[in-house]
């Protein structure tokens, strides 16, 4: 399993070389969105309206951070469980997004969309919010401030550590890893 350092926006060239299980250190701009924000973003796409940010090559981070302490850009910011975004993610990928960061398994439609649109589903370590929050250098709410922790934020990350869970070939590290260590009775 390889380790890569990548900077956003991502291209198909970036994503197609990644294999499930690889470690990636992400740099650059990332956008945050959870359940409520996804619902609104996808509604805008379906209505043909403009989004609050450019989806092309973007990475969406499923996170609802804690409030920042004075002087900090953001509080603790680890991933939330991703399956709740399964119904929205294929639309995001189809419209140019190249990656998602979350935790936990995705459904087949999301995995298929990763293959079709050269997308990657990255896993970050859940519950490591203090560690991950430290890799975020700046944060700015760019849409839906009324959603509080669920608002869309534009964040800048430096060497943000993630693992490739679903790659562009249809591989899934959760299935591969589990099969390797399962003890059958």
């Amino acid at each position, binding site marked *: *399993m390889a380790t890569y350092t990548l900077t956003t926006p991502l291209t198909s060239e970036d994503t197609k070389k990644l294999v499930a*299980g690889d470690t990636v250190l992400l740099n650059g701009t990332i956008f945050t969105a959870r*359940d*409520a924000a996804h619902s609104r973003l996808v509604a805008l796409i379906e209505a043909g309206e403009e989004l609050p940010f450019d989806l092309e090559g973007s990475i969406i981070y499923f*996170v*609802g*951070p*804690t*409030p*920042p*302490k004075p002087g900090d850009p953001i*509080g*603790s*910011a*680890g991933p*939330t*469980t991703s*399956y709740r975004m399964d119904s929205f993610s294929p639309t995001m990928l189809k419209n140019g997004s190249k990656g998602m960061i979350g*935790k*936990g*398994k995705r459904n087949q439609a999301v995995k298929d969309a990763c293959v079709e649109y050269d997308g990657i589903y990255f*896993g970050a*370590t*859940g*519950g*490591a*919010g*203090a*560690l*991950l*929050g*430290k890799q975020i250098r700046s944060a700015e709410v760019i849409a839906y401030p009324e959603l*509080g*922790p669920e608002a869309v934020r534009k964040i800048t990350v430096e060497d943000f*550590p993630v*693992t490739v869970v679903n790659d562009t070939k249809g591989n899934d*590290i*959760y299935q*591969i*890893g*589990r*099969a*390797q*260590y*399962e*003890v059958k*009775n």
Partner: protein
Amino acid sequence: MREIEFDVVVKAVKDMIMHCGTDLPQDTYEALESAMEAEKSPVSKEVIRQILENANIAKDEKRPLCQDTGLAVFFVNVGEEVRINGGLLRDAINKGTEEGYTEGYLRASTCEPFSRANLKDTVGYNLPAIIHFDIVSGDKIDIEYAAKGGGSENVSRACVFPPAAGKDGIVEYVKEVISDAGGNPCPPITVGVGIGGTFEKACISSKHALFRDLETKHKDPEMAELEERILTEINNLGIGAMGMGGTKTALAVHIESNPCHIASLPVSVNVQCHSSRHTHITI
């Protein structure tokens, strides 16, 4: 009748919440260290290393361990010979919760079930707390607290089996729940199993089982053996830390059992993520 000032309870609750938000309890930290050592998968080992590094950063820099700072859950044993001076005990716990979450920069995660509106404008910050009261003898108040995250709560389940299901039925059920959950509840997890009672009694027992220190076994050897059996079965699933595949899916299985109806065998499985933030205080 002993009197305890309202504000004493408020401060005790606030302090517990702020401490738990940033400082992983010693029993959890040590259980994770042992798990890292025993884990055979290098990927899962690295995940647990990150979890421990995260705990060190959180403690040193007073940052929340996880952005999901949970709903505040309390089990409160109130002595018969004690009263609160200056207000209701429930109000004191809620006030301490609000102050702890606000002053600790902890996330307000409570929302209205359908509008999903955050309740902080109408009810308070991360309120209401979930409080389970009991009356006991004596003149003290014992407050157990845990910050309960949503990801692990979402995979929890309960079922009322026929009595014939027995121990084998319970083991299979817990395995099924944890297998289906995979990496979603942030393993290595702790699993609370409530057995017997009524439907809701089993659920509450499975929650309370999660408040027990991780290294403590059940007092009843038969139950301790069942805990060990379920733990082995869970770790044989191969899920590993954050679902990456590995040998340490669970740190502990804790059972609380109760007498039940002759027609029923209620079972509840409540899952706790690796960030098992729990503590208690006696006033």
